[in-house]
């Protein structure tokens, strides 16, 4: 898949020469965009689709920069040069009604530019959209919900939420991840700028995209299609891990926690609260009676760094506040405030903390 990247092409090098003037700006965008930074700049790609778009964008920036310099200079020149002078004789300037040669020139040249831009765009469109899926690709089904992400790993038989884990893809032995994008309610859009361009999740309309991150790290993004009240806090976190770590994570996710007897008294009471109130209508925990599908699967809740789709860190205090009053973090979130007693909240939180 490396053929997609503009990396080694002369085009890209030419583009970078043209854009020398803009380089400091682009550096500013890309700076501190190491693997663990919070940057979401489109100019610091770490995956082939994002990288090939970056290469194309440099070329387009260079072409448009040249057009800008030429036309803006003409504009500046004529607005200074042809201003009415103080010692003007008051006569009208010579009237010129047009010039066929000039019209032809400024039609043909833009047409040529259009053809070049179209061809270079078509090449990347084909390369990204029509890429074949290798047999050992990781497959993930992403389901957009108001206002969180569901991730299904059909090859491994488990479901998780909000934090996507994928292996690093070595360019020599690529193991890309192919995402099937679905929506449970309204339109959403999956956008992690450093990995790939965005693709929408539309109900009744299956989409797909792929990523092959070359560097381990946590890459951030967020829903990019307005989907309702809490569109702003439908955040994306993609954990790109070395294959060994990814496999370990998969095994941990596959583990069934049915050992309810290992719970201490408070947590056991919390499980009872969980199973006897509305919690289980929306949430699933493997090995319990809770099989709801409207909210995130909580089987391995404590394996996640964040809750509320990335809105806050997953700490015991945040977890308790989230259960007690979801609006505290995400006003308009679809999770209702449960109106339990203080003791029940403590027990429920104690139970949730056992879901490793």
């Amino acid at each position: 898949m490396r053929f997609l990247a503009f990396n080694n092409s002369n085009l890209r090098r030419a583009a970078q020469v043209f854009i020398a003037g803009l380089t400091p700006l682009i550096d500013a965008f890309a700076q501190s965009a190491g693997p663990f930074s919070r940057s979401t700049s489109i100019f610091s790609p770490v995956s082939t689709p994002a990288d090939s778009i970056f290469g194309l964008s440099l070329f387009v920036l260079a072409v448009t920069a040249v057009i800008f310099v030429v036309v803006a200079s003409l504009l500046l020149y004529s607005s200074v040069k042809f201003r009415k002078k103080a010692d003007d004789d008051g006569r009208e300037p010579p009237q010129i009604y047009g010039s066929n040669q000039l019209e032809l020139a400024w039609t043909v040249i833009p047409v040529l530019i259009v053809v070049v831009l179209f061809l270079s765009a078509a090449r990347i469109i084909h390369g990204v959209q029509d890429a074949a899926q290798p047999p050992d690709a990781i497959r993930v089904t992403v389901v957009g919900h108001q206002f969180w992400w569901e991730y299904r790993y059909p090859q491994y038989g488990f479901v998780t939420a909000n934090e996507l884990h994928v292996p690093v893809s070595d360019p020599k032995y690529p193991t890309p991840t192919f995402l099937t994008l679905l929506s449970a309610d309204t339109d959403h859009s999956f956008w992690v700028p450093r990995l790939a361009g965005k693709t929408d999740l539309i109900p009744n309309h299956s989409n797909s995209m792929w990523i092959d991150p070359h560097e381990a790290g946590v890459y951030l993004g967020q829903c990019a299609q307005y989907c309702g009240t809490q569109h702003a806090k439908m955040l994306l976190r993609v954990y790109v891990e070395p294959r060994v770590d990814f496999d370990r994570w998969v095994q941990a996710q596959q583990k069934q926690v049915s050992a309810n007897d290992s719970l201490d008294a408070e947590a056991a009471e919390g499980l009872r609260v969980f199973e006897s109130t509305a919690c289980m209508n929306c949430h699933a925990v493997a090995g319990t009676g809770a099989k709801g599908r409207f909210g995130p699967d909580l089987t391995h809740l404590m394996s996640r760094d964040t809750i509320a789709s990335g809105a806050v860190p997953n700490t015991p205090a945040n977890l308790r506040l989230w259960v007690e009053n979801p609006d505290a973090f995400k006003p308009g979130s679809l999770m209702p405030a449960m109106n339990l007693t203080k003791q029940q909240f403590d027990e429920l939180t104690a139970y949730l903390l056992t879901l490793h």
Partner: protein
Amino acid sequence: MASDTIPISISIRLPQETRSTWLETLHEWVITVDHKRLGLMYIGYALLFLVIGGIEATVIRIQLAVPHAHFVSPQVFNRMFTMHGTTMIFFVAMPILFGFANYLVPLMIGARDMAFPRLNAWSFWMTAMGGVLLYYSFIGGDGLYGAGSAPDTGWWAYAPLTSTAFSKGHSTDYWTIAILVSGFGSIGTAINILATIICMRCRGMTLGKMPLLAWLNLVMSGMVLFAVSPLTAAQIMLMVDRYLGGHFFDTQAGGSATIWMHFFWIFGHPEVYILIIPAFAFVSEIVPVFSRKAIFGYPVMVAATVGIGFVSMSVWAHHMFTIGMPSYSNAFFVLTTMAVGVPTGIKIFNWLGTMWGGKIRYATPMMFCLGFLFQFLLAGLTGIMLGVAPFDWQLGNSYFVVAHFHYVIVGGILFALFAAFYYWYPKMTGRMLDETLGKWHFWLFLIGFHLTFDFMHIPGILGMPRRIYTYEPGRGWGIWNLIVSIGVLFQIAGVLFFVFNMIRSYFKGKVAGNDPWDAWTLEWATSSPPPAYNFLVAPEVRSRRPLWDLKHPEDPDWKYE
């Protein structure tokens, strides 16, 4: 003598009419079918909504000035950007451009009124009704017992957010009906402008001798018929979905969300050109007068406009590069999108050609035109970036897009509109706008515009999506958003100068006379403001610049055209 053959009326001051009471005056305006009064009413109405839409934008910018702000709730924020977009497009840009077309087209083609004066009045009142309905949603959206609820689905109102499952209450219904009703008004006015230009031109004015403003409004009106109709159809389908159990867009019952996108954008993209073509029209009239030269390449300008009209009908899906269209569809829409840039570029070059070798007078209208040229150039170039589908996969729906289309609409259309105000205000009121205040307005607004919309591109490149009520700290977005918000202050200051100038000049401005700019088209041949019948004697023209012929009998245009 050439002028002997051009009977252009010399204006005659009629004896002062007896002063009527304010009630009589109001009554006259309400029942009027005069194209000039209707034009002014369109403009006044649009300015009112411009202020309202501007206040909504200010709320948005206060909220986004810093990360995790709590100025407004997410619900209110979502209503604000929905209402801001809907208001600015449907109840500011459309009516204000129709207002100028209404006022200027009959005058510039030497007619006494529009072809259908009563249809004209009907269209205005339908548009006005639409705006009232939209804003009534604040009260009526949830019924009076609920909190005020304006629509919060974004101005595209993508399905299925508008379905009864996701949009409870009546806010979406008010939105739908407001668009529907104002759409009737738009179609009525478009038919009227078409009929007027085709049938009502004065003697001697062949299509090839029409002022460019008339040509451009002719193309714009044709586009309105083709573009507003699908929008109207989609709104009716949405109403069927919401009230009669239809499932066009109801994805929960097998409907299609993407069909709405197609319907909306096959309106939405031509709409951009419907708005920008009248702006081109203003610039095409003002730049020649202040450069003291005939427009460069008139036939090419007409051809480019007609070309834009056709090609812009086939670019709509570039708003949908991320919805998962097949690669060949994406490639097709890249090509059409790039192609529409060619005639647009030709226009810019022809305006430059007009300035080249001229004697440019830097009055306020010309300064706004130069602002327009510079900003429209940049807007076109960011448009090319967004037209390259893969680049759009990154930039689409980010703040880069928001910056891009505000560059078009504010930097392009609004600057051209300000130019038009300074240029034609003397014709409309009989008094000049003050030049000093005008230059304050220009510079403040220019600084504000560039602070806001130049820096707005950057958070988009840094990954900030649009339509979020708040954002996370630590992504490098904060400083840019703060600058963007600060720019708003300058824009507000500029607009205050403009409003003050309009009010003050109405009473105290320098008396304009018939032809304050030494211009060349027919509207400057009659008095300022023109009498109800426009021209005492039906004018006859022999060239595109009848007043040039009159002023330069030794060197008339008709010898060269």
